[in-house]
């Protein structure tokens, strides 16, 4: 829990920096090399997407205490922002992805008042917000913009290699951002706000601004990821990119690995998404049963996730 900045023990500080730095490097190397040895690129892509989403959930829940059941709303908006940029504005793919991410942040700005809510109020209201977005996008009133319930087909811009590479970059950048926040006073400030907003304000922390920054940042992450997902799939429907199971899985991966850390969501995504591929595609209900039971067991016996097993012995975990 010690902050390297305020840690006077220099060898320790160096070691921690090194351990932190290794994570994005490993991710970069791992996802760059693995397509050469493992043919199913779609699975690797989706694992990266979920890892990025899990980090977004981690920022919101792990650092600020907001549990975003409706996180998928930003993902879907990103996908549609990208698709509309390609279809109607004829933007090139990468620019369209950036537009998708930014559009998510803009929508997040409109939903900033949700941050006044806490606990279950926020969690369920965010879900309601995502449902509203989903139904607006799929409503036939906007069929000339979103193609309504019929979805988007981007076959002319389909470029799996580029979208894969950009996804690697977005994942690595997201991880770097989370590492940065965790190891800077800003991350401590977020944790302080989570514990007691009044004491935090009296320490000079701008509570509203800090929360808003995290909200917009996590929306950007989900928006970029959704945009890349849509581009990589090239054919999708509102029900694909606004599927509540996307939020649910991202939350489960984060809780399973351990929130408030950098490695927790990475580990959770690798293990559980791996499990999902082993049994979830043919028997989704059994996968759901397993992770449902896992969540119950975690809350009762290991609320800090599997990472806390290592932390418990006083070990530093990035």
């Amino acid at each position, binding site marked *: 829990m010690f902050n390297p900045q305020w840690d006077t023990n220099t060898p320790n500080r160096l070691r921690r920096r090194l351990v932190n730095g290794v994570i994005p490097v490993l991710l970069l190397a791992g996802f760059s090399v693995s397509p050469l040895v493992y043919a199913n690129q779609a699975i690797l892509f989706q694992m990266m997407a979920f890892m990025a989403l899990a980090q977004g959930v981690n920022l919101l829940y792990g650092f600020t205490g907001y549990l975003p059941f409706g996180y998928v709303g930003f993902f879907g908006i990103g996908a549609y922002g990208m698709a509309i940029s390609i279809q109607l504005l004829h933007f090139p793919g990468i620019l369209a992805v950036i537009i998708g991410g930014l559009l998510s942040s803009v929508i997040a700005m409109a939903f900033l008042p949700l941050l006044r809510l806490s606990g279950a*109020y926020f969690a369920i*209201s965010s879900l309601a917000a995502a449902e509203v977005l989903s*139904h607006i996008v799929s409503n036939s*009133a906007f069929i000339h913009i979103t193609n309504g319930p019929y979805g988007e087909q981007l076959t002319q811009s389909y470029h799996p290699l580029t979208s894969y590479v950009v996804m690697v970059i977005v994942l690595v950048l997201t991880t770097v951002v989370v590492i940065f926040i965790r190891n800077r006073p800003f991350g401590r400030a977020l944790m302080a706000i989570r514990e007691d907003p009044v004491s935090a304000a009296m320490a000079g922390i701008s509570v509203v601004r800090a929360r808003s920054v995290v909200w917009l940042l996590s929306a950007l992450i989900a928006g970029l990821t959704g945009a890349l997902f849509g581009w990589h799939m090239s054919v999708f429907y509102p029900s694909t990119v606004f599927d509540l199971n996307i939020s649910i899985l991202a939350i489960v991966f984060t809780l399973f690995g351990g929130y408030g850390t950098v490695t927790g969501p990475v580990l959770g995504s690798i293990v559980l998404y791996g499990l999902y591929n082993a049994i979830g595609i043919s028997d989704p*209900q059994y996968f759901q*049963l397993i992770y449902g*039971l896992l969540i119950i067991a975690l*809350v*009762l016996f290991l609320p800090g996730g599997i990472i806390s097993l290592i932390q418990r012995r006083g070990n530093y975990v990035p």
Partner: protein
Amino acid sequence: MFAYSLISGILFGIFFGFMALGLNLIFGVMEMVNLAHGDFVVLGGYVGITALNSWHINPLVSLIFALLLFFVVGLGLFFPLVPRLSHSRDPEMLSLILFFGLSQVLEALMEIKFGVNPESLPLSVFGNSSWHFLGQSYQISWVVSALISLLMILLTYVFLYYTPMGRAVRAVMGNREEARATGLPVKRTSAIIFAIGIALAAMSGVLSPLMIGSIDPTSGLGLTTIAFAIVVIGSLGNPLGSVLGGLVYGISLMLMQTYLSSWSVLVPYLLLLIIVLVRPSGLLGKGVRHV
């Protein structure tokens, strides 16, 4: 048209008020949101459908059966799960996550047992006649469901306000710490309310296929959201609030279905967002507890 939407809105509203009642009680007494609430409603629905299809048991009988069965289920779930949570560092958040896990488990079990296809009850299950009122006719099954819902809400009201147990429940709702300090059996009260909350959810579930058309294992989360919206509209911990919230929801839904049908699916979500952002203590509420 307007009269029809209004009356059917009232019928639906009373039913949805009943559907949300269990969530409201548990929320009020334990300060926990049972995210699996909707899944218990759906389970109740499957009880009614299975009883009718397999054993030709009328839903009126299944109602009582579901009430008793899920009271026992509720007690069985309470003791291993909830007391442990109350002693944890962040009971509010952890309970939310725990019940979310439970909801996933129930959804998965229902898919394994009943498959993913929507199932329904015949609307004629309470007879083929219809109710004529002010020149419009209404499904008799809607009227019967609303009457049963009303009866159950009244019984809950009587329980809360005219029995010693009910007084204990209201004391715990008012102030948990104080209730504990005055020697009230807070844990036992919580256990019974938890069981009643789940039993009422399942009981309303028996009627749910008649009111919402059909159910499938994934209907739960949507029903939980609707119930939560109703509870927040009507102010938590107040059974009359559930009726008010249900009526607001039912009437808005029917008016939207009549005049703006393509947007009617948004009704619960928009109502929830408006109420939490404008008046988070609900229409009847005096103070805000968690916001």
